[in-house]
């Protein structure tokens, strides 16, 4: 059994390392530091930690001001509140001037669980992806989370949205992993179907590929952790490799990973078909993370069933 980690925890630890290596880095939170794990940075670098209180709009604009004045701010809250709650500020003060602000959205997606619809960000990728200059990163495991957290400050110059979860995921990568903006990673090639996933659904897709293999279905798995810029070549390679592409995300099928892949496929043309798995234009609800993944067909079993059905086997 590989170690399972919550990406939000790994993020908190990585933030600490980022702070150690770069004195320009500042961290902001809005009364959720225990949850976003920015508390680790807070304890160590109190003078570079700013708690704005329950004022996400103020926090995001403050981050813009910090960035415009030589700092590199990481602003933290739940995914729902750091995106939808302050969209106008993000748009006009961060994306339009292309400022180097990192927005970290914690507890994203259905696996937010029992808090229910108000707290389950299922449209945050779509919202962030629509903004010019914004980069949208959804790490699949702890290793990738750490790499992306550091790269967001070191290797990118402009707005970044980092989507994090509270669902423990097994490590898929080892220390040889290198982050490259806009580049997907393949966890296996297939000839019948390619599963393109992001976030913790990558490990679910990988497990589904094994279940499919038991049924003589050959499935490739792509970790599309850089949703914007999207690795369009990887999508086109998948279109060449398999007649069916299935996107898997803990997000609405509208405008997120599935939407992004659909756009590339439509413009490319060809015979490959697309099936988008995710939430189908509806709000979330209270339940455990596992119950919700089950309900929306995002477990390895659920993904397998959808693929089998789509292939008519």
């Amino acid at each position, binding site marked *: 059994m590989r170690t399972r980690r919550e990406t939000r925890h790994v993020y908190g630890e990585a933030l600490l390392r980022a702070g150690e290596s770069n004195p320009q880095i500042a961290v902001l939170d809005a009364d959720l530091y225990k949850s976003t794990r920015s508390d680790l940075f807070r304890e160590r670098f109190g003078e570079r930690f700013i708690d*704005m209180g329950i004022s996400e709009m103020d926090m995001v604009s403050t981050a813009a001001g910090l960035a415009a004045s030589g700092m590199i701010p990481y602003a933290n809250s739940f995914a729902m509140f750091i995106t939808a709650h302050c969209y106008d500020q993000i748009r006009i003060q961060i994306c339009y001037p292309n400022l180097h602000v990192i927005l970290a959205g914690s507890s994203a997606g259905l696996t937010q669980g029992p808090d229910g619809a108000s707290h389950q960000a299922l449209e945050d990728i779509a919202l962030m992806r629509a903004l010019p200059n914004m980069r949208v990163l959804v790490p699949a495991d702890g290793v990738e989370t750490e790499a992306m957290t550091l790269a967001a400050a070191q290797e990118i110059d402009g707005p970044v949205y980092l989507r994090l979860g509270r669902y423990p995921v097994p490590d898929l990568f080892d220390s040889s992993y290198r982050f490259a903006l806009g580049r997907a990673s393949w966890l296996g090639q297939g000839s019948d179907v390619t599963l393109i996933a992001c976030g913790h659904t990558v490990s679910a897709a990988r497990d589904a590929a094994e279940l499919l293999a038991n049924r003589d279905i050959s499935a490739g798995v792509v970790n599309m952790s850089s949703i914007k810029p999207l690795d369009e070549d990887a999508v086109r390679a998948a279109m060449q490799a398999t007649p069916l592409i299935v996107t898997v995300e803990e997000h609405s099928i509208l405008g997120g990973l599935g939407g992004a892949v659909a756009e590339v496929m439509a413009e490319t043309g060809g015979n490959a078909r697309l099936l988008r798995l995710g939430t189908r234009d509806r709000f979330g609800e209270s339940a455990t993370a596992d119950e919700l993944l089950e309900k929306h067909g995002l477990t390895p079993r659920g993904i397998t069933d959808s693929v089998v059905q789509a292939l008519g086997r």
Partner: protein
Amino acid sequence: MHTSPPVAADIRELETIAAQIRCDLVRMIHIARMGHPGGSLSAADLVTALYFQVMRIDPARPDWPERDRFILSKGHACPVWYAALIRRGYLGRECLDTLRCLDSLLQGHPDMVKTPGVEMTAGSLGHGLSAGLGMALAARVRGLNYRVWVMIGDGETQEGSIWEAAMAAPNLRLDNLTVILDRNRIQNDDLIDNIMPIEPLAAKWKSFGWHVMEIDGHEMAQVVDALEASREAEPQPVIIIANTVKGKGVSFMEDNPFWHGNAPDADQTAQALQEICAAAGLEVADVD
């Protein structure tokens, strides 16, 4: 159809109901293994007074057009609302076991479509008061004679939208609106004073044009008097700043930020019920 219990006759009876509601919400959060006990307990006396004495409501007709409206803007404290709705007959007692469960009527945060008696969906802080303005305006425009009661958290007043609504209500001369501010001095991570101080609250609201009252939010007689008196404050909207204790009634939860969003285990729940009942002169076995 649920039968609605009679409205409480006196302060003593209201105190007993508040204790029962505290027990119910602690049990509910324990069973759910998640939820927000601190801010539910601090609001228990206020919500009890509203639902069992002050508000003009009819549990048999949750959509009666002339009913008073209650909005819990600090939506995470919904266990106290659900407990009151159950005791008042809007919902069956079997709901107690289903908080935050799949397909439950009782969502982790208020859902006005799923839950009878819930007037406005919430969970993202800062929005409830503005919705209250809309409801209060609708009463005026439609010629209906109801009052709107909005409960906000003190931490929640860090949201800028609260102050937009605070500006608008007096300008719109909303005299059918009462805000109840649950001033328990603690937010999610810590004491408000350690995060982003918001005082002086009374002076701020007064300067925005509100009629401000300040009470002890756990003294039932004061609570009822202030809520009733707020009906007479024309032509201004009223804010009742209720000084409360987060986690009120459970010694180990009181004034401790940890209990903002953590559920008690079985032993802690037993102790909590003991303490709540002892203070109200009840037997735990009778509160069911």
